[in-house]
């Protein structure tokens, strides 16, 4: 479970709640546009130590078959995963 993108974006007066209370984890926008470099995982080199998963401030690296993968919808491209990776399995590549 984690906050996820919703199709419905509340905008009209009746959409807007009567109080400042709303369903938890309600996302309507991605963060992909924040990025000018993206982490690319070399699955062969990855040793599955999960340090990149642990240290990611956005929590966008997830466990994937003993290795890891990235949710590019929400990765901001900070590069912490690359610096933390002792196996050298992550490269930052320019977005085009």
């Amino acid at each position, binding site marked *: *479970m*984690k*906050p996820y993108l919703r199709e419905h974006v509340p905008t009209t007066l009746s959409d807007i709640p009567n109080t400042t209370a709303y369903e938890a984890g309600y996302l309507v926008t991605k963060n992909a546009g924040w990025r000018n470099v993206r982490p690319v995982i070399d699955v062969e080199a990855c040793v599955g130590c999960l340090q990149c998963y642990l240290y990611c401030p956005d*929590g966008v690296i997830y466990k994937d078959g003993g290795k890891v993968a990235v949710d590019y919808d929400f990765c901001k491209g*900070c590069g912490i995963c690359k610096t933390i990776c002792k196996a050298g399995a992550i490269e930052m590549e320019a977005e085009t």
Partner: protein
Amino acid sequence: MSVSVKTLQEDEFFYGHKACAGCGGSLAVRIALKVLGERSIAVLPAGCMSAVGFNFPQLCFGNNAIISTFAGTASMLTGIEAGLRAQGITDFHAVGFAGDGGTADIGIQALSGAIDRNDDILYICYDNEAYMNTGIQKSSLTPFGAKTTTTPAGSNIRGNLRPKKNMFEIVAAHGIPYAATASIGYLNDFMGKVEKASTIKGTKYIHILAPCPTGWGIATDETVEIAKEVVDCGLWYLAEFENGEFTLNHKPKEFTDIRTYLKKQGRFKHLTEGDIETITRSRDQKWDALSKNFKIR
């Protein structure tokens, strides 16, 4: 007690937020919530983490979460805990996440009150050493020498002239059941402390150093490294206070170079050799005191 990266739950509770790339504070919040789990109620005062996490309709907390007033993190935690207990609900964690200004300056009164009452809450201070949400102004946890927008470094005054307030020991002086320091450079240590705190009744306080790449003048991929280095060079220490005793969790065999640590950061670029000597002397004095007053594990 065995939380580790292998056993940490995969649910994410702080996701899709708009914190700066490489934000140390968001990492502290994210990891603490993964340790505490879905039955945690998070209180965040007006500040970075609430500003980036709660912008209707982009609501980035998967668990129950609420923004408090800037000064009211602890008092709102008190009300939440009491309100649920009054309804017979006790299987939850009331956890606060406030920055250095929200904790050591404007929020210290409410925090002190909550500790005094020994309310059953966990208060986590993510310390990025200045008011970052408003654009890097000095707080009482800004270290000596740091340049901020209200302590500019010029030819007359070289940044902040006052040392960092010791919140950990101030909190401990209340006789709190549990207090600890941590760093986002040492997450295993932090996770263990959050887990331990979650099992203790009464008020718990964890002070985690969480660098801000924007405010510290470092690259976005350096946050974790610098948070490790500040511990390794002895300018921050990992410790606990429990049953009236201080324990040092980690004593570097040899300190890494303070000059290297400082000169990596934009906020310290202006420091002279004399300033660095002053900082080194004060570190050595602190460690003399630590060796005398703290049990060393």
